[in-house]
């Protein structure tokens, strides 16, 4: 299948009072047309900054995309003018944020927020834009859409606001949606509704999705391929089935083992990843996961690069990847 988005050696940095932070440190990954890809990792691993870099929403002067390419349908987004970029944002690539309340404008009606993009990007006349807005609200399962157009975000519950965000993202028929923790702020039963809705819409409309999350369960239900990030780098890359069946990086393995699971007998004790999350201003010179790793060897003082572990495209950035596969099933 054709590559819709190709990120090559992207590096995004932030100047902070305690030093330069390499939030995204030379990562490469891609999304095929119509596919759902996940970026997984914990806070500060660079997953949200990756999405913001694609949208060119990194705020200068502190934040800077230093190098790399972001090829979208063959064009490098980093070389577009601000005006050209505006025609991509919201039109071809849309974004869904974690906090629907803070990303909706509280003083504009639902209708205005939906029609604005349609009028600007698609040049639609107000009556046509309004008809499209009603269609969109119905599509994301909001009842009584005509009446909703004149309401404000505070009239909506959390789940409805997230549906509204999805409607806004879909408004201009984008080919890619970046969803940054789309269900984290929602309750479990509402999370299930929103995930079903997103999966259904992406299949029906053929939209590709990049889903950014820390929730391994959401990824398992949802993604075709997965990139696991740690301290600004991708440390493992595989199809979802392969990654969960045969994790090859100690961090991925540790994450999978540390969460209690409802489908397994209760364990007497949880098996956490020891130590603290990395401080991005003071990373070790070798592998960033080294201080917390149970599998460390001398060679880890030298940073490992992402390397293939099989012929099917599974990659891991770990010198010991082969041994991890041999000796440590996830369900031990």
């Amino acid at each position, binding site marked *: 299948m054709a590559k819709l988005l190709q990120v090559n050696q992207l590096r995004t940095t932030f100047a902070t009072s305690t030093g330069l932070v390499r939030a995204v440190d030379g990562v490469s990954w891609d999304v095929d047309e119509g596919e759902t890809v996940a970026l997984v990792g914990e806070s500060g691993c660079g997953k949200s900054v990756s999405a913001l870099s694609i949208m060119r929403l990194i705020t200068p002067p502190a934040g800077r995309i230093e190098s790399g390419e972001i090829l979208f349908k063959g064009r490098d987004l980093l070389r577009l003018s601000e005006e050209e970029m505006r025609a991509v944002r919201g039109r071809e690539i849309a974004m869904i944020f974690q906090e629907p309340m803070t990303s909706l404008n509280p003083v504009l009606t639902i209708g205005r927020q939906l029609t604005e993009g349609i009028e600007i990007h698609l040049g639609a006349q107000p009556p046509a834009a309004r008809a499209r807005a009603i269609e969109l609200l119905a599509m994301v399962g909001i009842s009584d859409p005509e009446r909703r157009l004149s309401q404000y975000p505070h009239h909506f519950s959390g789940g409805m606001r997230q549906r509204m965000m999805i409607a806004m993202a879909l408004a201009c028929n984008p080919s890619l949606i970046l969803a940054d923790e789309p269900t984290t702020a929602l*309750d479990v039963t509402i999370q299930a509704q929103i995930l079903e809705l997103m999966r259904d819409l992406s299949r029906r409309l053929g939209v590709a999705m990049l889903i950014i999350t820390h929730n391994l369960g959401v990824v398992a239900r949802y993604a075709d391929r997965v990139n696991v990030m740690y301290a600004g780098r991708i440390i493992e890359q595989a199809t979802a089935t392969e990654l*969960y069946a045969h994790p090859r990086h100690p961090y991925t393995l540790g994450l999978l083992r540390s*969460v209690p699971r409802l489908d397994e007998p209760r364990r007497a004790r949880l098996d956490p990843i020891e130590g*603290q999350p990395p401080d991005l201003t003071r990373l070790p010179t070798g592998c960033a996961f080294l201080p917390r790793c149970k599998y460390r060897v001398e060679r880890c003082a030298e940073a490992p690069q992402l390397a293939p572990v099989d012929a099917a495209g599974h990659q891991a950035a770990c010198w010991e990847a082969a041994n991890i596969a041999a000796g440590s099933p996830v369900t031990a």
Partner: protein
Amino acid sequence: MSETLLEVRDLVKHFPVSGGLLSKQTGTVRAVDGVSFDLHRGETLGLVGESGCGKTTTGRCILRLERPTSGTIRFQGEEISTLPHQAMLKLRRRMQVIFQDPYSSLNPRMTIGQIIEEPLKVHAIVPEAPARAARVRDLLAQVGLLPQHEARYPHQLSGGQRQRVGIARALAMEPSLIICDEPVSALDVSIQAQIVNLLEDLQARFGLTYLFIAHDLSVVRHISDRVVVMYLGKVVEIADRTSLYAEPLHPYTRALLSAVPIPDPKLEAKREHIVLRGEVPSPLNPPPGCVFHPRCPVAIDRCAAEVPALREIRPGHCAACHLA
């Protein structure tokens, strides 16, 4: 059966809602609407439910951070829901709380050492300064922090370390009950397991009793001996951990369990999900009859008319459902 440490009966907490020109009361939020349960010494009771179900308000009523509208709360045999303020302050030493957000619950201008020392000083638990300093170092070690953390400020610690400080501060009071209100949900996945293990170690070491309020059903199953499920201010099911997760009796519990995604794509693809329609109704105007009936996949006519009582269906396993 071990001794009952805390007994909650028919607990009700209503919040008046006022509006209009003269701020007249226009409605009532029924945050907690007739909740009863027992907490035995040394056990962990999980309290689960989605936002707005009343689980946090229940915890706050027990701590008397909210004054209950009606109902009784007996702690070590003593009725505390009507206790005068002064007496309550003394009693609160015996019940401590750990909050969800370890950052906003620590004073940013105090060092970790001062934060842990303060309750020891205020409650005169350790009156002499040198002994107090030793106690602070001991508490730091108990929660897995290093001596050098004592002089640091909250912003210099990671989220997991800050939650350890919150735990040390609660332990300083030598409580018998700790109310843990979403203690791990703000933490990174790799750190959550560390804190859960720490809470379990401390419980074993000091014989603590926990009321563990959370929305993450996997974590609750791991840590709890028994579990209370709440929906819209009411208890819908109470059971020991094993029965609740193996044989949930209430349709809401079943839906909640099926909504939790499992980190295994092959299993996920085969699993049947009960996706509930609609959203939780407003506690300002809860539905008549069973509060869950508008979203319930198996509701019958009776559910809209008659409030189901919490009944013991099997020994130790109660559910509030006409069909259970």
